[in-house]
């Protein structure tokens, strides 16, 4: 699958999901299982993405400067530091650690 095809299909599906919400009856909102599964899906996917992004290196697991950066990010987010500041700090921490040669 080409990158363009991936980009286009993912984008179209995103719109289809949004638009479908305007077409289906409101009573679906009263089905707790439906809304619960949807919300937990968001949580599960994001958590898996954190794990893969922090530990994955292709098909290998590698512990490197990303780990301290992610831990620091979580701490900063819990103190409600703005998103853009936190991600910048995470990047800087990773760069500094790598340049110090402490972590690959």
């Amino acid at each position, binding site marked *: 699958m080409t990158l363009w095809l991936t980009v286009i299909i*993912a984008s179209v599906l995103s719109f289809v999901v949004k638009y479908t919400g305007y077409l289906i009856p409101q009573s679906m909102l009263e089905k707790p299982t439906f809304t619960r599964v949807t919300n937990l899906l968001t949580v599960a996917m994001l958590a898996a993405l954190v794990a893969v992004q922090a530990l994955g290196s292709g098909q290998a697991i590698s512990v490197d400067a990303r780990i301290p950066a992610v831990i620091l990010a979580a701490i900063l987010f819990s103190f409600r530091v*703005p998103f853009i500041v936190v991600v910048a700090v995470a990047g800087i921490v990773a760069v500094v650690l790598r340049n110090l040669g402490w972590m690959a």
Partner: protein
Amino acid sequence: MALSAADKRALRTGISVGIAVAAYGVSFGALSVAAGLDVWQTCFLSLVLFSGGSQFAVIGIIASGGASAGIPAIASSTFLALRNGIYSMRVAPIVGEGPWWRRLVAAQLTIDESTAVAIAQDEKSAQKVGFWTTGIAIYIGWNLATFAGALLGNLVGDVNQFGLDAVAAAAFVGLLWPRLKQLQAAAVAMVAAVLATLLIPFTPPGVPVLAAAVVALVFGLTNWLHREPVAQADGLLEVQPDDADEPLDTPGFHPGHNHEEGATS
């Protein structure tokens, strides 16, 4: 058009949330180019997909698996986007009837923030103003920022040398963090992260993320580890409570506050 005081408050909130959120667009643009997408593909995602979590998911999975990870990238993006369908159901009465194209535009603008600002307003007209202002402000800002970030990313060479891999991981932490206030959500996050990590060496890139959907299904269908919420949740993303038993019209969004601060009242 005459705006009431409530409308003006909604307008101000919408614009300030729009500006704050748009800033993330820079990090998305830069990371997308670093993941291997070109500037136009990057801009296409922000223009058409237009849902932050899903966009980061697509580029995160492409970064690890390249073009051949297309299917898991699409599936993960769509699973993450399903919540927008719920938001659509909630804001449909706010958007109301109108010419056919109005719902198409409204659908495209239906995301976490526009929904949050809309349902945080008490009056119907202010809800409408809040939805449209936030949606339009973020749409314009997010796309401009994406373009700027993509151009910036093009100047950057080695991704890891600049810590962009850590930036991507931190971005997902930021999207996840506000959703972890309930035990059930925290448990799902923990199990999903462990499962994904264990699968990394044994499955093609993208599959570990996709497999985490099973964790949500198991917990969601059985309602395992569910607790009655003890307090009113705060923070932007609680507008869609983790638990649907909680009344859906108790927004956690506090107008007038920067949404990053989402102060507990």
